[in-house]
């Protein structure tokens, strides 16, 4: 009641609902980890057996080791490449910048599961490119299933994450500081190394922590690429526990989850701290008003070749693999495309109600779910907009919590919530359950979109309405919302793509009625329906491409 009086009814309600959605699932995970059996079993008791079990399991330690290896490799690969890419695209006269800038974002919006699958069919032991290279030079110089390969692919596909932060920081840098270096005799390479990149060091550091953090959550790539040689990471170890004991071992899974969160949550806090200090750090950044691109001179073409090679490896190879595989019913050594060509997979999708439903549901959850999610995020954004009080701080921290929970796990936690919270059972088998889980999992991302839109509104535009006599709610309706409507539309498009991309959150929520392409892919992959997986992946990529096209048409800033 006191809070009601102090913060107002609607704000308090918004924050309460948000707290429920955030804390209920994570609370269940924490509680479950302290039990020695699934919490719904009649004979469960408190104890640390679950932790004892996983700490005794050599698989856990090898998964942890692999995860650290992959996370560190991602850091080492993605940060320098992302920084270099950002420098080339944001500061220099590299040719074909516009199309490249667009292509760079593809790995962010394409599901890692789809990419991983693409690598298998393109570069696996009998992949299209593998066979081609083997015919050409007689041997295949790679093994896509090895741990270093997985780490390399993970690193390359996370280059855009670093690129995003580095390039937005570089764009805010005046070109005078670079010109000053050129005048004193530095080559473009030295300018990047000694001036531009060091000046955006805080952004690089931040994105480094982000990539390392994503490394700890990584699931789709190792799930697919790590299976043949048995390389586990923490998330796929968790997934494996689903079956290891033959009967549900939710307590073990929850214990692994707690271990993952134990690493990721401090990383999230570190990111937050870095982001704040980064803003303070950049005091001198030159005059932004006039920007001139740094001429690369003789390095223009080699730099372009490097960027194109990266694009080839991370975008074109896997996506072309998927496209190819979607149109053949079988493939292998000595099989010709004409002989194997078939539209069977697409016909099958058309004929199977659950597959067709998955496609429709994916569109629904992207378009409508994405839109409603933006509304919900906006409500939260407005509840803490321009108010520096306790409630806003609570919201700030609450946003971070789901960020630390991998999607696979969040989906599992939501399954429990839907099963055991009275009144929610009815929506369990509807798409709303998946949507709710997606919305909580992507809370931090969505809130960042909304708050950056809200930050575009000058405070005095709202204050002036207040002084004219408008209540806070009225100001939101008459001033703030109309002013950020383009920002909201962009957020909608971005949420659409993110929701299309999501695959792990729906895995445990998959049931008739809640199929979405993402979780269907994981399930079909497990069942081995590879041609359907390829066709669905292609449809998924096509949906994302539509999102990208719309984003392009309306000039949405993808670099959020």
């Amino acid at each position, binding site marked *: 009641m006191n809070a009601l009086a102090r913060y107002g009814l609607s704000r308090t309600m918004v924050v309460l609902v948000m707290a429920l959605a955030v804390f209920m699932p994570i609370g269940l995970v924490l509680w479950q980890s302290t039990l020695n059996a699934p919490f719904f079993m009649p004979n469960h008791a408190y104890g640390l057996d679950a932790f004892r079990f996983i700490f005794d399991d050599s698989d856990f330690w090898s998964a942890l080791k692999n995860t650290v290896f992959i996370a560190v490799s991602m850091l080492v690969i993605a940060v320098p490449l992302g920084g270099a890419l950002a420098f080339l695209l944001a500061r220099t006269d590299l040719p074909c910048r516009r199309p490249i800038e667009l292509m760079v974002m593809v790995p962010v919006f394409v599901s890692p599961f789809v990419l991983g699958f693409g690598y298998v069919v393109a570069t696996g032991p009998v992949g299209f490119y593998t066979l081609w290279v083997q015919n050409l030079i007689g041997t295949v110089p790679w093994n896509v299933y090895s741990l270093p390969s997985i780490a390399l692919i993970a690193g390359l596909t996370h280059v855009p994450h670093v690129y995003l932060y580095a390039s937005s920081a570089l764009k805010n840098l005046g070109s005078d500081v670079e010109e000053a270096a050129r005048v004193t005799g530095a080559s473009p390479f030295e300018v990047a190394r000694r001036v531009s990149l060091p000046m955006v060091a805080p952004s690089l550091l931040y994105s480094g922590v982000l990539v390392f953090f994503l490394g700890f959550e990584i699931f789709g790539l190792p799930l697919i690429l790590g299976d043949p040689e048995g390389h586990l990471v923490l998330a796929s170890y968790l997934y494996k526990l689903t079956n290891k004991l033959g009967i549900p071992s939710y307590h073990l899974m929850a214990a692994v989850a707690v271990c993952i969160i134990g690493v990721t949550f401090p990383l999230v806090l570190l990111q937050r701290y870095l982001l704040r200090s980064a803003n303070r750090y950049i005091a001198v950044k030159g005059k932004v008003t006039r920007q001139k691109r740094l001429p690369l001179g003789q390095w223009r073409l080699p730099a372009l070749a490097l960027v194109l090679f990266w694009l080839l490896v991370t975008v074109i190879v896997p996506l072309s693999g998927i496209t190819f595989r979607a149109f053949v019913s079988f493939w292998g050594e000595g099989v010709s495309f004409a002989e194997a060509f078939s539209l*069977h997979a697409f016909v099958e999708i058309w004929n199977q109600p659950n597959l067709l439903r998955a496609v429709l549901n994916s569109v629904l959850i992207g378009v409508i779910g994405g839109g409603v999610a933006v509304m919900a995020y906006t409500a939260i954004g407005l509840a803490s907009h321009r108010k520096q009080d306790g409630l806003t701080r609570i919201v700030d921290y609450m946003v971070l919590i789901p960020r630390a929970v991998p999607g696979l796990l969040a989906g599992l936690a939501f399954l429990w919530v839907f099963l055991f919270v009275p009144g929610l059972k009815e929506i369990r088998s509807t798409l709303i359950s998946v949507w709710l889980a997606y919305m909580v999992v992507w809370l931090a991302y969505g809130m960042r979109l909304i708050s950056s839109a809200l930050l575009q509104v000058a405070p005095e535009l709202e204050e002036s309405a207040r002084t004219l006599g408008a209540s806070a709610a009225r100001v939101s309706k008459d001033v703030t919302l109309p002013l950020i409507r383009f920002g909201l539309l962009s957020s909608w498009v971005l949420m659409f793509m993110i929701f299309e991309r999501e695959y792990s959150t729906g895995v445990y929520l998959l049931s008739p009625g809640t199929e979405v392409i993402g979780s269907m892919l994981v399930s079909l992959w497990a069942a081995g329906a590879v041609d359907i997986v390829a066709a669905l992946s292609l449809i998924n990529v096509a949906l994302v491409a539509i999102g990208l096209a719309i984003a392009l048409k309306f000039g949405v800033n993808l670099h959020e």
Partner: protein
Amino acid sequence: MNKQRRVMLAVLAALPFAQAFAAVPAGYPASYQAVIDAANKEGKLVVYSTTDTALMQPLLKDFQKMYPAIKLEYNDVNSTELYNRYISETAAGGASADVLWSSAMDLQAKLVNDGYAMKYATPEVKNLPDWAHWRDEVFGTTYEPISIVYNKRLVPAGEVPKTHAELVTLLTKNTAKYKGKVTTYDIEKSGTGFLFVTQDAKVNPAFWNLAKAFGAVDVKLQSSTGGMMERISSGENLIGYNILGSYAITRAKTDPNIGFVMPTDYSLVISRLMFVSKTAKAPNAAKVWVDYVLSRRGQSILAMSADLYSVRKDIAGQASGDYLGRVLGAALKPVAVGPGLLTYLDQAKRLDFIKQWKQALGR
């Protein structure tokens, strides 16, 4: 394959027994009419199954034709999910399945053993072999031999192993060729795979030699049948061990790369198990469904459209386990439905077995 199914349907629709809907089937006691009436009144039936909806479509359609008043909700989920969902829903006291139908025989047996099943003496039980039912609670519905699958292009006919012993010999003699080219289930990830291997170990005294041979060729472990099949088809792997025959048959129809054999020394046979939930909201509809699936009519459709052999003793033709028995004789070793399935659901025993298996593989 689709075309074939459609033809089958047409044939079935024209069959003489496709009449007298919702009447007591021939050979059933007259009192059965009361069950049908109650089932019609219940009006809705929820089935959780591990078999793909697409594969079951003809069966479902036919059932609806026979009992139009019962709205059938068929949910296909994987076996672990089926188990988890069912027990968690039951624990939460909410609506769950009326009938559970799963290929994970051990999990089904566990549910029955834990008292989740309703006792039901189906009139069809007399047509089932003894190994295929337990305590009048759970019933086998299919007859599915386990096979060895190979790549027809890359494995010469002379090398194709006909028995488990031949497989061991092949792998020990041609270690270099088959290194990294043999695949089987990762028993830690696949409950089905685990079940097969433990049954192997029970039936085959030389099983651990085979495991060692697998280890020597650096066997690739995978979590799914489909994954194995795909890799065999592409030539990434050449031989797949312990693959459900029904999948192999289906795939071989469209994929010229795929060949399969049922080993002649012994072939394990599993059966999809079905029981009625004790807490079923529609117990009568559930009974009607169980009887239908086990009936001649249900079994015929299942066998013809889904490449699942019939478990009934009295169905003739290539679709029946009986036929398979005539071809393979005593080599067929059905996995008996009963408490024997529960052994490895004990955590310690299971982990011990996994350890032994991994040691044999040299992992």
